[in-house]
Each structure stands twice: as structure tokens, then as C-alpha cells.
């Protein structure tokens, strides 16, 4: 069930590379370059050093004693990706890809961003490695995450506000792809999630797998369950992949928004249909004609109508359970974690916390759950404030 390098870029029937022909040589070059450095000792050494000295790895495994006590069930552990430089797991991937881009001789980096965390992580990696960064961000997201826009600009990146389509993450990806088609020779597209055409889902998973590998080392016993939030699915696949061939129960949490039975959610694995978008075949939120639906989530980082192809595969193989939690449940979880542990989680990560709270109650006190706390919540406090003021 565990797939190393996907044959023809396919995880089961999912993935592939549905791309405009102009990108074909670039994707081919990327695939070759990546497969070459994937086992290159010097590359691994250089990236390993950056992850330790620059990003702050390994991240701690924290036993959330107060939260566990409050909920009253299985022991809840937090994998503290929120403590990384930049405040999210995104830096694991951007350092890896920026190093690769540098080796490929590319000087101009483009990236998309939803909540702004990947944009910030790209801007940081580029600043430290001497590369030029341009970030595409949906106009709606530039408003709701304006602090991150300024952070990117401070770090020397140029931010383009995308005003086409729904003006969110998917449109930022569209615009980044158009830029890449236009500047294919000079430019490296640094995708931030485990989505897009092959080899991106593979690369992003490999660079994020450091999360799951550390979990394995840090837990004396393999945990009874691991939980991570899933938008495109990068922190989740990084958490899950090293644990696929263990007996751990693995759970991915999608953004249920106002409920998966309404149209206002971002949960393609729970309520989507197979289709082709952004270079990959996967589960998508779409209408009867195949038009991609506009999504909703309280967290900008999960507000995406598709999901990484490896998740689609793991769902169909019944290896990973995919569930959704609503905005209301997320806010509750956000507040509970903040008040019991003094940790403000990103709204994305609060999805995983919400589900951990739900299932830990039904588990034995001797059992354990690891939740990947993918990012910190400073960026979200205005959204939470507004939400609470409306109640």
C-alpha cells in the first residue's frame, strides 16, 4: 500500500500530470532533477543542516496534560510544527524545494499561497538562499490575512493579489501556473501543498515526511491514532506516510465549514467527486457540469476544492479515515487548546484538535493520540475575534 516513487506519477488511479504542453519540458526537467537529488548525500546533508539550524528541527512532542485531563480519555500528544521558524510546517518543504531550485540553476521562484503561511515560508527560504520570490495570493486572502502579506513583503518577496475566479487559493494556483507557462525557462514554481502534477505530490510528501519520521522516533510506542488536518494535505501526508505500514489508526480532517451537507465547505474527500484540476486527477468539489465549486472554510489554508492525489488513494484503499469538522467545532477546539495549554493553534490545525477531542473521549486512558499541530494561530486572531463578536 505504501508507494515510494509513484509509477507514471500515479497513486493508484490518482495523480498524473495533466498540464499544458509548454510545461512538459519543465516538469520533465524537474522530475529528473528531483529523482537525482532525492538520494544525494550532499543534498540531504545541506537540507538537514538548514532544517536544524535555520528552521528549528526536530520539533518537540508535547504531552498535552491539561487538555487530556479536560477531555478525559486517551492521552493527547501534540507534534509541535507550530514552533518552527515562520510558525508552520511549510518551511520543511520550501527549504527543500528552494535548495533544489538553486541546484537547477533557477533564480526566480514563484509560489501560490492561501493563508499566507506557504508564501511566508517561501519568502524566508528564498531570502536565506539568495533567490528572488514572487507570491500569488487570492485577493480575498490578502484581506483576511493581511499581516502575512506584509511579512512576505518585508522578507523581500513581491506579492500579487489575484482577482480572478473566487479570488482564493485555487485562483492563486491558476495564476502561478500561467506565470510559469509564460516564464518557463527562468522560473521555478515552488508549490506549497501535496497537489499539482507529478512530481510535486511526491516531492512535497518527501520533504514533509520528516514530521512522521520524528513522531516515530519520539513516541516510545506507536500511538493508537494520529490526526492531521487536510486541505491540499501536505502536513497530513508528511505525518501519515511514515506510519502507513504500522497498525496506527490514521485520520485526516477536512474543513467541514458550515457542514458537509451544505455547499459551504472544503471537504472533497468527504463530499466530492473524481476529476482533473491543477494537473492532477483527484477528488474535487464540482458541480454537475464539472465546474469547480467555490469552497468555504473559516481557515484560509484549507479553503481549496481539491486534495493531494495520495490522500485520494489512501481513502480509496481504506487505509486512512477522512472526516470533516465544522467551523463551530473548530472555534471551540481553538479556545479549549488556547485556555488549557496556553497554545494558540492555527485554525487549520484546530480542525485536527477538534477531532482529537471527539475521539479521545471514546478511547481508553492508556491509549494515545498524536495530533500534528501544523501551525501557530497568531495569524488567525482577528478572524476568531470577529467570529466571537457575532455570537
Amino acid at each position, binding site marked *: 500500500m505504501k508507494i515510494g516513487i509513484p509509477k507514471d506519477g500515479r497513486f493508484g488511479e490518482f495523480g498524473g*500530470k495533466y498540464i499544458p504542453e*509548454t510545461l512538459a519540458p519543465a516538469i520533465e526537467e524537474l522530475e529528473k532533477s528531483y529523482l537525482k537529488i532525492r538520494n544525494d548525500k550532499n543534498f540531504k546533508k545541506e537540507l538537514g543542516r538548514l532544517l536544524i539550524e535555520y528552521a528549528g528541527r526536530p520539533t518537540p512532542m508535547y504531552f498535552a496534560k491539561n487538555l487530556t485531563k479536560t477531555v478525559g480519555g486517551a492521552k493527547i500528544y501534540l507534534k509541535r510544527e507550530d514552533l518552527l521558524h515562520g510558525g508552520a510546517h511549510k518551511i520543511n518543504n520550501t527549504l527543500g524545494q528552494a535548495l533544489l531550485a538553486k541546484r537547477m540553476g533557477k533564480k526566480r521562484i514563484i509560489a501560490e499561497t492561501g493563508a499566507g503561511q506557504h508564501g511566508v515560508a517561501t519568502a524566508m527560504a528564498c531570502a536565506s538562499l539568495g533567490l528572488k520570490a514572487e507570491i500569488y495570493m487570492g485577493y480575498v486572502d490578502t484581506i483576511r490575512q493581511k499581516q502575512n502579506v506584509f511579512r512576505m513583503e518585508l522578507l523581500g518577496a513581491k506579492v500579487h493579489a489575484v482577482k480572478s475566479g473566487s479570488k482564493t487559493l485555487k485562483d492563486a494556483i491558476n495564476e502561478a501556473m*500561467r506565470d510559469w*507557462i509564460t516564464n*518557463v525557462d527562468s522560473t521555478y514554481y515552488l508549490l506549497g501543498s501535496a497537489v499539482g502534477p507529478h512530481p510535486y505530490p511526491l516531492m512535497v510528501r518527501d520533504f514533509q515526511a520528516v514530521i512522521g519520521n520524528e513522531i516515530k522516533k519520539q513516541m516510545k510506542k506507536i500511538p493508537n491514532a494520529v490526526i492531521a488536518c487536510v486541505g491540499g494535505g501536505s502536513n497530513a501526508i508528511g505525518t501519515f506516510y511514515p506510519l502507513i505500514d504500522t497498525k496506527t489508526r490514521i485520520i485526516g480532517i477536512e474543513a467541514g465549514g458550515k457542514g458537509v451537507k451544505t455547499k459551504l465547505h472544503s471537504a472533497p474527500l468527504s463530499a466530492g467527486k473524481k476529476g*482533473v484540476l491543477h494537473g492532477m*486527477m483527484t477528488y474535487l468539489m464540482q458541480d454537475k*457540469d464539472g*465546474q469547480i465549486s467555490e469552497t468555504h472554510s473559516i481557515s484560509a489554508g484549507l479553503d481549496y476544492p481539491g486534495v493531494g492525489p495520495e490522500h485520494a488513494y489512501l481513502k480509496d484503499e481504506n487505509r486512512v479515515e477522512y472526516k470533516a469538522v465544522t467551523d463551530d467545532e473548530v472555534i471551540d477546539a481553538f479556545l479549549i487548546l488556547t485556555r488549557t495549554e496556553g497554545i494558540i493553534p492555527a485554525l487549520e490545525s484546530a480542525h485536527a484538535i477538534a477531532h482529537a477531542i471527539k475521539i479521545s473521549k471514546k478511547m481508553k486512558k492508556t491509549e494515545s493520540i498524536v495530533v500534528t499541530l501544523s501551525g501557530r494561530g497568531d495569524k488567525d486572531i482577528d478572524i476568531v475575534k470577529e467570529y466571537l463578536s457575532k455570537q
Partner: protein
Amino acid sequence: MTRIQEKFNQLKSKNEAALISYIMVGYPSEKATLAAVRGLIKGGTDIIELGFPFSDPIADGPTIQMASTESLNKGTKIDDFFSIVKKIRKEADIPLVLMTYTNILYNQTYQKFISRAKEVGIDGLILPDMAIEESKDYVKAAKKSGMDTIFLVSPNTQNDRLKKIIKATSGFLYMVAVFGTTGVQTKIHKYTIDALKNTKRSANGKIPVGVGFGISTDKDVHKYVSSGADAVIVGSANIKIMENTPVNKIESKIFTFTKKLKNKTR
């Protein structure tokens, strides 16, 4: 033989290149689409390319993105598209090509979508996000229905890849003129002319080669035709005319523009 193949044979005997004209169905309205089709046919276009809007058109520049969004906002559904094609077919026997994105077909399954499209009178398909590696089921379904599969090549497509693409292509081969998305360009690059010559060499007379993306004037048409293009494809320029013209003037404006372009293919 499909209508597209027949058309190219006729033109070849007259030593003419084809003018292929693109419009977006439902932009700015169904009435405008039908008026534009009449203008195109009277102006002498050889093949009409009908765009069906997709929510995420990654290969398109601002003009066609705008037309897609507008058409979708007006509520254009795939059923409306097929019913417009039926109306056009009642009036004309001109070859009709559908340009859209893979998900629109995938959603209904390739086979179902293609046989329905063929039934209403579509002769060929262009899917800018359908890479040759992923095209096996699509090409198989199209062959079964006698539908032409028009693949795109780019100035950076290497020769071994070009061969594979030519093998899967029928009707004509669509060469993208520029590194970039659809839309008006201000100059013709030398690399495009070189790529056109190379592509023609690989096609070796077995399949016509059309050039598209960024072609908007009669001068552009002349330049590509005199450099060996078997067809030129004009899209965003038509959309721009339609954007700035009241519906009752669209037919005559499109007619005048098309006639001017068509003259340069002879």
C-alpha cells in the same frame, strides 16, 4: 473522413491556408454567439472553434478568462452548449471544434461526453490541459466516435515528444505560438517561426499544422501563412470585438474582421 479533414483537403487543392476562428459560447449571450457565428461564416472562416467555459482556465490569458467567467455567470451549462451547436448545425455544415478543459469531459466520462458531442455535430476536440501521457482513454474514446483529437505542441516541445503527439493527433496539430497564455501579442518571435518550420518537418505532410495564441491582425496571418502554417487560429481578438460591440452589430463587425484575415490565407 471528418469535416475537418475534408476541409483541409479542399483548401490544399486551392493552395490556401485555413482560418480558424474561436469564440466563447454564451459570451456575452447566446444571441451574440449565434450572431458571431453568422459573421464568421459570411466572412469566410474555414473552421469554427467553440469555447465552452471552465471555472479554472489555466492556459488562457485575461481576455478569454473574462469571457469564461462572464459566460458561467450568465449560467451557461453544457446542455446549453449542445443546444447551441445543434442550432448552428441546422444552418451550416462548417467544421466545428470544441475547446474546453479535461474535467468537463472527465466529469461525464470521455466516452459519454464525446459520443454526445459527435451526435450534435462537433467534429474535433481541443483540451489544453490534456497531456499526451494521460491521453490514452481519451483518444480511444474519440477514435470510437470518429471525433478528431487536436493536440497542442509548444515551441519547446522536443522532437521525440512531437512524434508521439503527432501520432495521437487527428484533424490538425495546434502549435502554440508563444510561451504564455492565450491573448494578443505585439510581435512575432523568431523562435516561433523556427518552431513552426520544425513542426512542419515532423508532421511531414501527414497532418496540417495550425498556429494559435496571440494572433490578432491580418499582418500576423500573412506572416504565419507565408512561413508555412496550414492554418491560423484567431481567438482573443474576436472576443475583444464582441466585448465592445452591441449585439445587433456583432455579425457585421465580425464579418468585416474575418474577411480581412481570410484574404491573407490565400
